[in-house]
């Protein structure tokens, strides 16, 4: 069956890049959730991951490096009927945009944040990113990165984010399941996706992840925040995947007086003439 989200365009990613799998998973997820392309907005920043909105049929807002989350938040506030996804790389979301990441969690807007975590700055050709392991060698960090890696899951759980998950680009089916739950979850949903960068990250390869990754099992209770935090610290010999934490709480849209009591931008009446004039000019 044709996927309405398919778009034929030239894709500027390296062959074998984990981004292809994430793209595929996202397109199938959106289609299996029966969304129409016009209902979905993808907001991205700058980077390899941030190119993703150009490769599927959706509404696109491609802004600045690090700045996708505030835009996504505002899009959702203006038009709550849209499915709003902020999607970018680890550098974009956790480094330059780290501040937005932390504070968006506090507000709990009903958006999904998908991070292609390749533990490197891909687009600028291989420098250490916030999630690179200590000692990661690059052309800039020639003697290895001196900083401890940023742990997005621990931070999100510590901040009581509404939904926190980790997927792997090497497993499209499972990634789809996670994305489905994240996108339909009311509130801030983080999906950190382990994404091998075959060109610039020779440490965290497909094999490296495969040897370590395992899924949280059915006994695992994602409602238990302390357990979730404990799980989020697990990294190294074993790397858990799946839904770490889930906690339903009022979203920004549900809490904020103006958004509850007044009509959203979407519902405001527009003067009929104004709309007609605008539409008619295309036929002149």
């Amino acid at each position, binding site marked *: 069956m044709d996927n309405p989200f398919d778009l034929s365009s030239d894709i500027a990613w390296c062959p074998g890049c984990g981004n292809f799998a994430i793209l595929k998973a996202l397109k199938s997820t959106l289609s299996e959730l029966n969304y129409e392309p016009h209902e979905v907005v993808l907001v991205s920043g700058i980077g390899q991951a941030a190119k993703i909105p150009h490769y599927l049929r959706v509404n696109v807002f*491609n802004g*600045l490096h690090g700045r996708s989350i505030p835009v996504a938040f505002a899009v959702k506030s203006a038009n709550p009927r849209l499915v709003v996804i902020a999607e970018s790389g680890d550098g974009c979301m956790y480094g330059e945009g780290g501040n937005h990441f932390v504070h968006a969690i506090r507000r709990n807007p009903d958006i999904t944040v998908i991070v292609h975590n390749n533990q490197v700055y891909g687009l600028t050709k291989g*420098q250490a990113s*916030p999630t690179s392991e200590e000692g990661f060698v690059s052309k*800039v960090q020639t003697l290895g*990165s001196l900083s401890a890696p940023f742990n997005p899951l621990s931070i999100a759980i510590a901040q009581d984010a509404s939904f926190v998950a980790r997927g792997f680009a090497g497993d499209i089916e499972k990634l789809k399941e996670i994305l489905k739950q994240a996108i339909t979850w009311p509130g801030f949903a983080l999906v950190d996706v382990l994404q091998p960068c075959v060109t610039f990250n020779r440490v965290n390869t497909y094999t490296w992840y495969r040897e370590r990754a395992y899924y949280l099992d059915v006994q695992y209770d994602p409602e238990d925040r302390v357990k979730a935090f404990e799980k989020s610290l697990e990294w190294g010999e074993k790397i858990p995947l799946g839904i770490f934490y889930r906690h339903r709480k009022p979203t920004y849209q549900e809490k904020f007086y103006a958004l509850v009591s007044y009509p959203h931008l979407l519902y405001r009446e527009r003067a009929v003439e104004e709309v007609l004039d605008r539409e008619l000019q295309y036929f002149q």
Partner: protein
Amino acid sequence: MAKVMGLTGKVMGLNGNAAVAYAMKQINPDVIAAYPITPQTDCVERFAEYVSEGLVNTQFVTVESEHSAMSACIGAAAAGGRVMTATAANGLALMWEMLYIASSMRLPIVMMVTNRALSGNINIHCDHSDTMGARDAGWIQLFSENAQEAYDNIIQAVKIAEDLEVRLPVMVTQDGFIISHAVEQVKVLDDDLVQEFVGAYKPAYPLLDVTHPVTYGPLDLFDYYFEHKRSQIEAIDNCFPVIRRVGEEFGKISGRKYDLLETYKLEDAEYVVVALGSTCGTAKEAVNLLREKGKKVGLLKIRCFRPFPKEEIIKALVPRRGVAVLDRSVSFGGFGGPVFTEIRSALCDAPARPFIIDFFYGLGGRDIYVEDIEKALLQIEDVVQKGQVDQYIGYLGLRE
């Protein structure tokens, strides 16, 4: 090792980024803090290699954004270090509030800007919107025509910035990709000569001098803020003699003398094109071709845009009949681009002024050709012959 013009040094094949990285290596600053952004990344990566090879003693600080990069530079410079960095486009834009801190604290930081168009939409190629956006931030701005000039300017920038008459940060620009990624022959000086030229750094009021405690950046309201701005105005205006002196001294050790402006076939020129950066090379060719056809044309190249060398510009342009200014950035809603506005303002009081028109060109890396510049020169000739300007602002190389 080849001798250059009777002086020591050698010729290397370097692109603009590599030339600047090489100069930085020879300068051997105490601290470099930077964040990667195309087309600057290559410069910083090359410098990082020098760090790892132990060829410099620099503390290389990696950060999570350009805002932090400039903040780190400011901290290190206030502590008393010789500090350098590099950026481009939105990286420079993100530094914006910190640029003002650096200049008002009179910290002699040297920064290379690889000129790239500001978003949006996203573009990685050259225009001057980044540097021009920062033109009011209190930094000295030196433009380079090619990799050689980028190399030479960076070395001079250190000496200019640190001069006690100056004590201001300096931005040295090179056109993104056009200069930064094109390999040219670059004459480099010997390491010791560069060291001798820049000299040992003597910080003026370092935070690390614990016997003389100082305060940077306290609250400064309507009582004294204005006076402090007045002193900053004076400081940057006083830089001209230092920039010239350093340019001359650099000429003595390298055979390449620098001034605030460069003139090309200007002495008897009636029609002049004014440009900055790599386009000056293209403009020289256009001037040559029109000269062959008997046209009296010339080029005025602005090397130092901040401070704006008003007197020299008046001297160079007043005797001309017509001036075509090339602007590689837009001041939206303004009367022409930043270069045009400044030049018209400078010439306002001259008893006999040339006609002056402006051309926007090269935004987002659009190529500029010799023919475009010939067109600009012929257009200003036309204006002069008609005796009136029908259109002040034109476009070169634009699809319309």
